[in-house]
């Protein structure tokens, strides 16, 4: 096996064209998979020396997050935390302090686990990503990245450089919650990310709801989300919303949870996430007034 750490996107693309080449970002999934003999790359391309993968930038009200920025760096970014608390809290739930020092959003997407914690939050945010490869550059909505467990839409030789978040609107906010058997160091039984936009009067205008670990990929629950606009998340609305969430779940039975349990928990988490996002957005409307 060989290891390279190119310092430019062009060099990385050239190296990735070799057979058996594999991208290394934080290594928290790749290295244990190699140790366990589940992956045997001929060539490791460490993308962390490419400056575009390692920076968080903010232009006007739009953030761009390098694919190889670490969880610790996301948590330590006060503006990102203020504008996108759901994304930051979702990523912060991944692994230990040690894992946070290495794990990256690019890796969380490319490992393509149905239970990836940051993925629902990025999808709820309507984020896109910048993908580069031998055919050039393309921008892709993040909900298209994971196509099945362990599989992404990336073509041979492609890699994600960065994630772009849409403009942060004054009356909008996001939130993420997950359920694990233990409070730390565990993998989600179910997760739910919600992003809401309100009007000045606190009436929900748009909603995006994404469920984790209740399907082969994180699930954009559009039918459930439709219940929220026009409401102030009253009890009756939330009952219908929860019912719709349960209908959209397609979980499996495994050692972490049964189909019934995951489905029931998904609805509870989606409701609670929606309420947190609503309170956060409401607080912002009050700040604005």
């Amino acid at each position, binding site marked *: 096996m060989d290891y390279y750490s190119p310092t430019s996107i062009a060099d990385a693309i050239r190296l990735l064209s070799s057979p058996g080449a594999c991208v290394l970002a934080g290594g928290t999934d790749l290295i244990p998979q190699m140790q366990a003999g589940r992956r045997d790359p001929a060539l490791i391309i460490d993308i962390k020396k490419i400056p575009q993968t390692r920076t968080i930038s903010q232009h006007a009200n739009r953030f761009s997050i390098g694919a190889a920025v670490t969880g610790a760096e996301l948590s330590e970014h006060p503006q990102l935390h203020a504008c996108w608390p759901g994304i930051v809290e979702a990523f912060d739930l991944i692994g230990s302090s*040690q894992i946070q020092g290495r794990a990256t959003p690019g890796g969380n997407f490319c490992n393509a686990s149905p239970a990836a914690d940051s993925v629902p939050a990025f999808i709820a945010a309507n984020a896109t990503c910048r993908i580069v490869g031998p055919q050039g550059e393309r921008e892709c909505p993040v909900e298209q990245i994971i196509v099945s467990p362990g599989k992404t839409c990336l073509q041979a030789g492609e890699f994600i450089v960065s994630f772009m978040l849409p403009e942060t609107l004054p009356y909008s906010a996001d939130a993420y919650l997950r359920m694990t058997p233990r409070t730390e160091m565990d993998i989600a039984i179910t997760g739910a990310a919600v992003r809401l936009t309100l009007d000045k009067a606190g009436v929900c205008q748009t909603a995006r709801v994404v469920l984790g670990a209740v399907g082969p990929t994180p699930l954009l629950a559009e039918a459930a989300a439709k219940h929220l606009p026009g409401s102030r998340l009253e009890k009756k609305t939330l009952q219908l919303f929860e019912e719709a969430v349960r209908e959209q779940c397609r979980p499996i039975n495994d050692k972490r949870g049964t189909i019934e349990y995951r489905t029931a928990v998904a609805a509870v988490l989606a409701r609670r996430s929606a309420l947190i996002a609503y309170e956060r957005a409401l607080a912002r409307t009050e700040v604005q007034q």
Partner: protein
Amino acid sequence: MKHHISVLINEQKHELLCNSAETLLDMLRNQLRLTGSKEGCASGDCGACSVLLDKRLVCACLVLAAETDGKQVETIEGMAGADKLHPLQQKFLEHAALQCGICTPGILIAAKALLARNPNPTATEVRYWLAGNLCRCTGYDKIIQAVLEAAAEMASVQEQA
């Protein structure tokens, strides 16, 4: 493929040759005989190999040695002063916050990283921060107590200075 790397380990510069697949933990233990960092799980779950890489807490088993070229690494061997233990080490002794000791170097490094960013943590913050360091002996209570007392002592020393 061999890589020639230059890395600062416990403030001492090292020029080393490493293989592509060699982890930072392998390099520390096998090449440099810095065996304080332990291999527990080799998958990033137990924290026994915790080190600081450019001041950031990481598991050395999840870092390739080749990645550390041009970086600084701090291990347990660099923690004590010439003739004095670090306050965390001293408090671990006083509280008997260790039994078999395998997890101790990793926990000391992780605790040091915590106190560098949060000099006055609550017991809950210490517990969450150390959740990635597994200990099968102590039941954790004495570890938490030792970290809290070390934090208090370090703060009072700072005040006097």
